[in-house]
């Protein structure tokens, strides 16, 4: 399918439009909130919350017998919040570290949820089919009202972020200090965690329990590579999350039998991979290039310094010397000598080299600079 054709289809086809909008909004809100989770080193919190939501969905179905999304998601919200509170309780009341607490709650709630799901599936009730879609998500079931709900929560989240921006920032950076300034850190903490839980629950229908945490982490981890400002990071994470939703939906809609949720997560992962390699400041590629460049520069400086030592004993600093004597020096290479010639620091003529006045000055500066740094 042509790209233009696809874009036209997004605008004309109700289902495709709903899914595209829904996944874009979902990606944006999870990206935003994910930045906070990542910076608090609570990356796994999202995973624990989404798994903890599963028994809530099952119990909501058992009680009401209804498969209405909103009712099931309220169940998910309640059990997700209970899971979060237990994690907080375990870490503050026992010796256990937070990773242990997260792992415990995640497996406990998920195990219980799976147990309930299998129990429900054995019921002689024709209505029970399809609950397992919350495991891996099914974007095709999104309807317009779902998108409105997501948009409302995203707007609310944005408002709270803008209002409490400085409170969130100081809580993330230095919680104890924030407390001495008189801020109720518990309140800020609960506020941000509640929104994370809410965003995760909203995404369960689309992406599912198992992969939901990737929506939270991937855009934030990718965004962190490109900027050193919290504001820009949150903004960029929202953009990346939204794009992952749009592109993921497009790929899954144009290829047969590709489930939307996993494709979105894969697109987000590609963003992460790309950012880890290509970001100019923190990326692996440019780090490597900088390392090699620095090493070459240093070799060059060492060669120049060695030449300077030979030259400085002579009255005429441009007096030629044989290239062979450079072979005694470890850092010497033909390539290095060529570079020095290119820079007009050295002149080479028939197996002899001589230092230019420009090279002599550069070598002198080298020493002055080193002296200053000591």
């Amino acid at each position, binding site marked *: 399918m042509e790209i233009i054709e696809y874009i036209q289809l997004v605008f004309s086809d109700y289902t495709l439009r709903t899914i595209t909008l829904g996944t874009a909004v979902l990606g944006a809100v999870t990206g935003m909130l994910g930045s906070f989770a990542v910076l608090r080193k609570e990356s796994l919190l999202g995973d624990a919350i989404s798994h903890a939501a599963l028994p809530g969905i099952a119990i909501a179905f058992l009680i009401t017998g209804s498969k209405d999304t909103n009712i099931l998601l309220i169940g998910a919200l309640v059990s997700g919040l209970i899971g979060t509170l237990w994690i907080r309780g375990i870490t503050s009341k026992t010796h256990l570290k937070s990773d242990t607490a997260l792992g415990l709650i995640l497996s406990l709630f998920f195990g219980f949820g799976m147990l309930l799901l299998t129990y429900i599936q054995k019921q002689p009730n024709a209505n029970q089919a399809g609950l397992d879609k919350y495991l891996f998500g099914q974007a095709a079931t999104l309807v317009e009202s779902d998108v409105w709900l997501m948009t409302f929560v995203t707007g609310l989240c944005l408002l709270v972020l803008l209002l*409490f921006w400085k409170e969130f920032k100081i809580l993330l*950076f*230095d919680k*104890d*200090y924030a407390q001495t300034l*008189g801020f109720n850190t518990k309140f800020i903490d609960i506020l941000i965690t509640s929104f994370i839980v809410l965003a995760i629950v909203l995404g369960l229908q689309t992406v599912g329990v198992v992969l939901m945490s990737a929506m939270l982490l991937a855009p934030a981890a990718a965004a*962190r590579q490109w900027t*050193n400002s919290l504001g820009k990071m949150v903004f960029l994470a929202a953009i990346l999350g939204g794009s992952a939703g749009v592109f993921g939906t497009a790929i899954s809609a144009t290829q047969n039998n590709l489930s939307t949720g996993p494709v979105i997560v894969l697109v987000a992962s590609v963003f992460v991979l790309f950012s880890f390699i290509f970001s100019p400041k923190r990326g692996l590629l440019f780090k490597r290039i900088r390392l090699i460049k620095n090493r070459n520069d240093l070799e060059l400086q060492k060669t120049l310094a060695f030449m300077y030592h030979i030259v400085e004993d002579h009255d005429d600093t441009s007096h030629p010397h044989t290239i062979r004597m450079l072979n005694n020096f470890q850092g010497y290479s033909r390539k290095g000598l060529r570079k020095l010639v290119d820079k007009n620091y050295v002149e080479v003529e028939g197996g002899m080299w001589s230092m230019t006045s420009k090279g002599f000055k550069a070598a002198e500066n080298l020493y002055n600079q080193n002296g200053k740094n000591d």
Partner: protein
Amino acid sequence: MEKIAVKVDDLTVAYNYKPVLWDIDLKIPEGVLMAIVGPNGAGKSTLIKAILGILKPIAGSVTIFDKPYKSQRKHVAYVPQKGSVDWDFPTTALDVVMMGTYGSLGWIKRPGIKEKKRALEALEKVGMLSFKNRQISQLSGGQQQRIFLARALVQDASIYFMDEPFQGVDATTEVAIINILKELRKAGKTVVVVHHDLQTVPEYFDWVTFLNVKKIATGPVKDIFNDDNLTKTYGINYKVSIQK
């Protein structure tokens, strides 16, 4: 008699049944530059954190200028240990110093031009003005410590609590920091510092508290900084040559 800046009564703190601070009574007069010394695990940082309400004590009370600490937060500034935060956090030196203004701003209100000016002044005081836009992970340990100090200076408090401000800094930074602390004392502020280097106590401080779970002694350096108290605190026969 001089005014008492900080008064601690019967303060007891425990982690899981093990007492870390036991029945501490402490009076810190206004305008002193005081070191808290003691061996590792003596509860020095814990004492500061308990005074500031970061840790909940089992028993005891803290008053600042004769009023409960909670109503006096504006008079108190805190410099945490440098290692207590993640310096890879995406923000700049200036932004961290600005956090010192958040307390006086209160909820929701954002820092403006006035707050920025105060932060820049503090940065200049600690000699870090040219680093204001530097990403904090790009700062050296000594520079990070200066940033923390600047953040506390911005608070313009009467009492400063500092948790090991000399830890891992070079000689130049140490001199710069102690000069600022002495300036604070000259301006009538009270400064309480968790300190490790016993040799520099007589040179830097005029008041000292010996702590090892219990309070061993507190008073002017010239009166109580002696081998007897050092031995009681550190449990070994400690001898320092004190320049009086």
